[in-house]
């Protein structure tokens, strides 16, 4: 009589074999842990190989950015082990702006100036809207929410040109002007702030709504009983509780805006171009000046990488805030 089948049931051969395997499995887990570790060792090795494959391209760029230009153009970066030539001149050249509309240093500042507000504005607006969708019942709420969600998939390309003309010329119906254009382009970040805010809203509302709607109803009702209106409930209860989701989405939005090229190409012209735009110019116009490319790319990457590594744990929470529970 085995531990698994204490009663002698009539079982066929296949089931007997399966049960025998199960017994062996128990033995394995309780007695010989080493065998289990062997199978997961194979998995770990496979994982390490994949990780190496994934990191090698980036590593190649890092190595290349420190090599002198002549060496970059004539030999692969892996030869650094046999033919070392270490220099920081590439970084120097690209920082002190050789040939683009705006120097890399200026573009870096532009990127910061564009990204910080563009990460914050959608959050405030989206959290207010998410609270309304979650906790203020009104007719047509579900349909409206689905509509906002569906807007998420509107390709940005569709919205670019109309938005641009809206900024430039304002909106007029027939002969009456509804509002005048901003006309402040050129040195102002206003256009690109508004553009990024708009494009971030659908996803932001969706993610924050998923989180805010999971706040226990008792909390909200307790506040209601204590006499708090929607404003106070939002400000004092919902906002602090939703901070994790807000923080992780803020990081996401920061990365997305920092790395964005398309919206910058259209709305941030000339002196306010961010770093992605400058990078593309370097790549496009001076495709052969690879030494500029490498160091430029790395300077553009440093901030997102720092943000990413420093705030890693919030990412997962943020990503999961939009998908289902467990």
């Amino acid at each position, binding site marked *: 009589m085995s531990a698994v089948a204490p009663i002698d049931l009539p079982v066929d051969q296949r089931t007997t074999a399966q*049960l025998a395997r*199960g017994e062996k*499995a128990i033995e394995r887990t309780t007695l010989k842990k080493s065998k289990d570790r062997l199978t997961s060792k194979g998995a770990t090795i*496979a*994982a390490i190989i994949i990780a190496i494959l*994934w990191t090698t*391209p980036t590593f*190649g760029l890092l190595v*290349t950015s420190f090599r002198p230009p002549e060496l970059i153009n*004539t030999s*692969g*970066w*892996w030869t650094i082990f046999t033919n070392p030539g270490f220099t920081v001149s590439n970084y120097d050249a690209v920082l002190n702006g050789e040939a683009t509309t705006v120097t890399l240093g200026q573009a870096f500042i532009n990127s910061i*100036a564009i990204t910080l507000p563009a990460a914050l504005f959608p959050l405030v*607006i989206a959290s*207010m809207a998410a609270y*309304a969708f979650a906790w*203020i019942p009104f007719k047509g709420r579900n349909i409206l929410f*689905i509509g906002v969600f569906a*807007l998420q998939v*509107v*390709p940005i*390309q*569709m*919205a670019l*040109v*109309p*938005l641009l003309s*809206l900024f430039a010329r304002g*909106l007029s119906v027939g002969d009456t*002007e*509804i*509002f*005048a*254009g901003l006309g*402040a382009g050129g040195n102002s970040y*206003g256009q690109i702030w508004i553009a990024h*805010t*708009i*494009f971030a*809203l659908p996803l932001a509302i969706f993610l924050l709504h998923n989180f805010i709607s999971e706040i226990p109803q008792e909390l909200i009702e307790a506040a209601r009983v204590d006499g708090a*209106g929607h*404003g*106070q409930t939002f400000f004092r209860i919902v906002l602090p509780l939703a901070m994790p989701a807000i923080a992780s989405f803020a990081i996401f939005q920061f990365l997305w805006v920092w*790395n964005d*090229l*398309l919206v910058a190409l259209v709305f941030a012209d000339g002196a306010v171009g961010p770093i*992605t735009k400058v*990078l*593309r110019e370097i*790549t496009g116009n001076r495709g052969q000046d690879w030494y500029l490319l490498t160091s430029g*790319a790395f300077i*553009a*990457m440093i901030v*997102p*990488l720092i943000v*990413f590594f420093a705030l890693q744990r919030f990412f*997962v929470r943020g*990503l999961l805030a939009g*998908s289902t529970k467990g």
Partner: protein
Amino acid sequence: MSGFLKWLAGLNPFAQIPLVIGAFLLVAGILIFFIEIAPRTGRRYTIIRALVCVFAPVTVFLLLGSIMVAAVVAAILGGVFFLLDYRARSGAGYLFQLIGFLSPALFLLAIGLVYPTVATFFKAFMNARGNRFVGFENFVFVFGQEANRVAIINTIIWVLVVPAFSTAVGLAYAVFVDKARGEKILKALVFMPMAISFVGASIIWKFVYDANQADQPQIGLLNGIITFFGGQPIDFINVAPWNNLFLMVILIWVQTGFAMVVLSAAIKGVPAEQMEAAQLDGTNAWQRFTNVTVPGIRSSLIVVLTTISIASLKVFDIVQTMTGGANGTNVLANAVYAQKLEEGRASAFAVILFLLVLPIIIYNVRQMRLQKEIR
């Protein structure tokens, strides 16, 4: 508002950041404050409500610079709100609060996404400058030219290949890394490409794909390996049609991290009892994977697949930076950008792009509805 922005533009960027953030938070705070004040009863609050009905249109006028809109806002606030609140069953000021919370978002979405989408739909049937109706001419152009058809087919291939591979590799990696030592570092390494912009990724991969003449030393990593083993260097990004695959590898490289993180968290959510029960039943690892893990993470799989599909439909930076759409690598998103001077044609491309995305929306919305029912 343009006055404020113009003044702001003249300042140092580092001064602009706190100023604009401060101004924005101030406006938001005032909005929330008035939302809070709105439903309170009593003479004092009624006076405040009346004042808001006067000041809000003034603010709108200052923001947008138009009397028309300000008058409309005044009419709404003054007349309609009174009537509705008078008869409201949810209490006075309820509608005011609702509009207060929702209006910034809905207003921005309306002018920023809804209006352009509708406008683009109409523009697709207009000529290049948008003032003459030309029917389906633009679509004839799109489908008539070989290059454009190639772009459409390429886009479809991108949408089919990239999500499949990213999810597969991400899932495999998540399973391998689960409970391994150094799990966090391994995950971070694979997730890192997501933090890199697409332009940066293109540059990184330029150093992998570059091809030189056979007699010259190779700079690209792949060609370096190939010539090391005695082969001829291959021009990866210029040989149609395989160059598309090599461009897709870049997006797979980026998106696998996303798939891995979401699926890894989902795998950890599969109840341990189910796994143990399966183990007791004598299944091997592969059977456990297909029969317990995969059904358990199904919803996350769908989320990952649809998100990456949407991302690959929108991909523009990679193609633009690596090849500019040449040599048969063009995709719809790039075509819209390239045709931006010809409004009609660009809009036609955008409409086709949107139609391709539509099935994904519908599927996602259905999933959402099902989830809402479960909740």
